[in-house]
Each structure stands twice: as structure tokens, then as C-alpha cells.
């Protein structure tokens, strides 16, 4: 059976096409201003890569903050449920997921069956999210993709006390004026972000294995800081950004299977 998962996040839209257990293709595009258009575009791109057409998709699950705008989906499920399914399929031993996306961050607890047992999400503020890193990269004139590698060179992380993105931005400006190195400032940013995640996740608890997903998981500096911050080794999937879409596709398969059974 051929199914799709479409994850419309605040910053990027993701799609995964699944044939039974095999990932046929995936795609990631910026969400832009129209979630409806992004949903269509990202699905079409993934279809193109697998040489399939829309009509061949037997079931589609949408997820992410724009999940309800995906008119062609058969079902909408939250990104928390989908991340759990995505991570469990790749790493069944995972008991905690740290997901840091463009606009929000979450810590999800999993039970032995890989189901969500508990979760926390950040509030409407951008602190502790990909957006926070984006703003800081802008201030420091660094490419987002380079941020992680540069930050690892910072041996004396600056102390960044503001968790608010706007205040942190002005803190950045003063640190620069004090002549602090970019490396140390970036290392400090990572520490500040992870600190926030660690506090937020306290009510869920961090239990091994800890999976790290979302676009920010591509940042090697944050990975390192997260391991130091929670004192546990973390596991990062090969493509951390598409785990929500992958989970949605897996759940699409389950939904379809149960429908076929009923028939």
C-alpha cells in the first residue's frame, strides 16, 4: 500500500511517501505564507521524486501546526503523536523525544510500546526554538548551517541570561561590543537554548534512549550542548527534520490497514 505523511510546520513543510515499510521519497520546502499552497507543493515534490501521482496515494495523514489546512488529507493528527510514531519506527528503545522545530519545542515521553505517555510544549514565545537560532545567526552574520560547527570551537561559552529572543538579541549586540569571539557567543547561545529545554522537560523527565528530532537537531553544536545539559547520550535520526512526516505516513498505513480490516 502507498501512503503519505505531510507535516506542515511553522518554518518548513515536509512530506514522506511510504510503500509498505519502505520510504520511497521525501521532500522539505519552506512553508511560506500559505500553508495550503505549501501542503500541495511539498506533496507534489515528493510524488515527483518517487514517480507517483496523487491518485496513487491510498491514505494521507497530515500533521504539524498547519495540519487542518491540508484539504486532501484523510486524517489530521498532532505532531506529537506523529513524532512518537516516527521515532519508534526507527528506534524502538527510545523513551524520550526532544523535538526542536522552527516555532516550537517539545519534550515527549514514550512508554514501552512507543506511545506518548506525557509531553510538554513551549508557549507562544520563540525562546528555545529554531527561530531563536535564526535570529541569533542573523545578528552574528553566520549561516544557519555553519552555526553548529563554529560553536564547537568556542571553549569558553559566554553567559547568555535572556531566554527571550528579543532581549537575547540585544545581549548579543553588547557581547559583540565587548569583543567576545563569535565562537564563544555561539557556544553560549547553545547552552542557553538547551538550558531552557532541560527546564521545560523536567516534568516529563529525560529517560534513555533520548531521540533528538526537528530541524534544529541538524545543528551539531546543539546536539553536543543537549548531551552535556541533560547528562545523557542522544540519538539523532539520519534526517531529523522529516520524522513528523514519517510518523504521519506510518500512522496513515495503520489507519488504512484498520479500514481494510473493517471492510
Amino acid at each position, binding site marked *: 500500500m502507498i501512503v503519505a505523511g505531510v507535516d506542515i510546520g511553522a518554518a518548513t513543510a515536509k512530506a514522506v511517501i511510504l510503500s509498505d515499510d519502505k520510504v520511497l521519497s521525501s521532500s522539505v520546502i519552506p512553508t511560506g505564507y500559505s500553508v495550503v499552497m505549501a501542503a500541495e507543493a511539498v506533496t507534489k515534490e515528493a510524488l515527483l521524486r518517487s514517480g507517483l501521482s496523487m491518485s496513487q496515494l491510498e491514505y494521507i495523514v497530515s500533521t504539524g*501546526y498547519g495540519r487542518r489546512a491540508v484539504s486532501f488529507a484523510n486524517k489530521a*493528527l*498532532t*505532531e*506529537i503523536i506523529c513524532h512518537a510514531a516516527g521515532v519508534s519506527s526507527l528506534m524502538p528503545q527510545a523513551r524520550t523525544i526532544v523535538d526542536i522545530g522552527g516555532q516550537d519545542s517539545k519534550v515527549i515521553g514514550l512508554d514501552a510500546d512507543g506511545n*506518548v505517555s506525557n*509531553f510538554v*510544549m513551549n508557549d*507562544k514565545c520563540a525562546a528555545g526554538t529554531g527561530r531563536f537560532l535564526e535570529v541569533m545567526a542573523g545578528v552574528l552574520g553566520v549561516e544557519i548551517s555553519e552555526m553548529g560547527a563554529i560553536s564547537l570551537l568556542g571553549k569558553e561559552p559566554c553567559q547568555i541570561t535572556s531566554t527571550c529572543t528579543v532581549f537575547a538579541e540585544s545581549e548579543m549586540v553588547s557581547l559583540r561590543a565587548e569583543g567576545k569571539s563569535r565562537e564563544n557567543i555561539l557556544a553560549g547561545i547553545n547552552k542557553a537554548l538547551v538550558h531552557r529545554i532541560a527546564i521545560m522537560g523536567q516534568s516529563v523527565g529525560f529517560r534513555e534512549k533520548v531521540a533528538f528530532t526537528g530541524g534544529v537537531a541538524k545543528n551539531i553544536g546543539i546536539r553536543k550542548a543537549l548531551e552535556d545539559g541533560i547528562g545523557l547520550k542522544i540519538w539523532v535520526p539520519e534526517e531529523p527534520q522529516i520524522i513528523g512526516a514519517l510518523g504521519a505516513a506510518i500512522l496513515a498505513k495503520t489507519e488504512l490497514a484498520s479500514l481494510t480490516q473493517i471492510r
Partner: protein
Amino acid sequence: MEIMHKLASHLKTRLVELNRAKQQGRKIVGYTPGGYLPEELILASGAIPICLIRGGDHSVVELTGAYLCRWIDTFCRAQIGYAVSGDDPYYSIVDLLAIPITDNHIRAISDITDHSTDIEVFPFGVPHMKEESTFSYYLHGITRLKAKLEALTGTEITKPKLREAISLCNRERELFREISLMRKSGPVPISSRDFVALNHASFLADKEVMVEILESLYKELKGRIALPDGHPRILLTGSTLAMGDSRVLDLIDEAGGEVVIEEFAEGIRPYWENVNPDGDLMKALAECYFMQRVPPAWFRPGNERRDFLIKLAKDFNVDGVIWYQLMYRESYKTESYYFPDKLKRDTGLRMLTVESDYDPSEMGPLRTRIETFIETIRGKRHG
């Protein structure tokens, strides 16, 4: 339900009715919700009680920014916004605003209303522990209120009048209790939205009309056969569920959950206990409104409320608990961190905490949290 329409039309004309009563010389006494104000005293003085229970609107919350520090509870900031802006006609109509000071947030309503409006405010303190000395303190507070009401209306609150008011209010509580208990297990004959609407209406409606409506609703519900539904059953608890703040109830509904019991410090009338109509009536009022009242999260120790929540969860056969707190009500925030462990230990149930500042931008994350929670319960039930 025809009865709900009848209630809605009563509320529609309520302000006109109140204005007319006021012109004829009746006094209207407002009070803040929280369950510590014996309406019986107001009724027995011949005045009309009105509870100020509106909320859910962010724009009035913002209005208070000029004279309040940000970390005052959202509902309380909203009340101040209504009072000072004159946006709520119920605030403009009251001759006296009686405020049982339950915590610092409610105190802010009292202070700012007193300072910034022409409304006469009558505050009295509510202690945070239950013992002999605090019982006397509370009794002293409502005794002062009694004298104040007598002075305001020029009517003596006699024992027969007070007893009559107690019996009317007891009947109202009894009916709420009986209707609520119909939701203990199996199919639910009344939705939480309707039950909450009834509760909110009871804060504004004429007491006799309200009791009449509840009587006929009770009869109707008893004869009704509800269909089994299989939706996850939810205990909804928290600090304040205001009139007009239906977002969480709506989202639970949309996600396929069914709230079967509500427990709030403010917004749901305490209906579990009645006032003893014999003996010393003032003491009986204090006994029911202070000693027997299940205390909110700011009481200490907090185990009475926690135990009560566990009992509700078991009695009403729920599948999960949703804890809805408003921003900056620190007592609820603290309890929301400790309570899930006890809940899990005693019942095996999970709890979701959601928080609001009545801000429309919270809608997306709120929906994600509630949908996920209901979905995980459903997944667990189906194994």
C-alpha cells in the same frame, strides 16, 4: 433543549429587569466568584445578588496594563478591565460589590475597583486554613457583611427571612448536585457545555426562576435515555472557568472528548453541601461556605482538594484529567506540577495541564495539546 432556550431568554431580559428593580428601589449586590459569598444573606436583605463571572476576552485584560503588574491572574485582570472601562453592564448596575478576598489576585480587583470606580466595595478576608480560629474569622466577616447589607437596604435580615433564603439556595444546590451525578457513569444525559451554561446562568438569573428551570430540567433529564457514545471521559479542573471562556470546552469537544465533571475554584458554583436550616443560621452558613467547601489550590495543606479530585476521578469513572489554569495563578501552577504523580499513583490516570491568558494566539498550541491528549487516551483504551 427547550429549557435552555427559556433560560437564555430570561438572561436576555435580565438587565432590563434589574434596571427596573433598581428604579423601584431594590439594591443590587455584586460579588466575585469563588464560592465564599453566601448569597442567602443578600437574598434575605431583599437585595438581588449578581456574580461577576464574565471572562475570556483578551482586550479587557490588556486594558489593565497601566495600573497593574503583569503577574496578576488573567481572570482577575479581566474583572478589573470590565469594572474600570464600564464595558460590562453588570458592573455598572451594582450598588455594592462584596468581595471575599481569597488571594492576592482577588484582592487586586477589590483595591482597583475601589480606587478607580464609583462602585462601593465591601471586602472581607477568607483564611487559608480550616480551624477554630479561622472559622471565627470567616464568621466575623460574613457577620459584618450582614450588617452592611442591612444598612444598605434598610431591611433587617431576620431569622425567618434567612431561613427562607437558605431553603431556596439549598434547593438550587441539590438540583445541581442531582443533575451532575447523572453523569457518574455510562451515557451522559447533559453535555458539560450545557451544565456549565446552567451554572453560569445561576450567577445572574433570578433565584426562583433558576430553581424552577432546574426542577423541570431535572425531570426532563431523568426521563431521557442518552445514547452510549464511548468518548474519552474527562475531569476538567482548574482555577477559573468564566462565562464566555468556552475555548477549552470547545476544543475538548472537537477533539472527541467528553467532560463529565468540572471542578473549579471560580466559575462552578459549589453544590456538594447544603446549609443546615436549623439552629444558629450564621454559624450554619460559615460551616457550609467555609468549613465544608472543598478548598481551592491556595489553601494549605492542599491534600483536601487533591483527595477530592481523586475521588471525583474515580466516582465519575473518568479516562483522563485536564487541568486548566489561568496565567499567573501561581497556586494552581505549583499544584499542577505535584498533582499528576499522585493521580497516577492512585488512579493510573494521566493529566494534561493547559494555561491561558485569554490570548487568541494561544489557540494553535492549545488545540495541539488537547488533541494529543485525547488521542493518547483513545489509543490506550483501544490497546
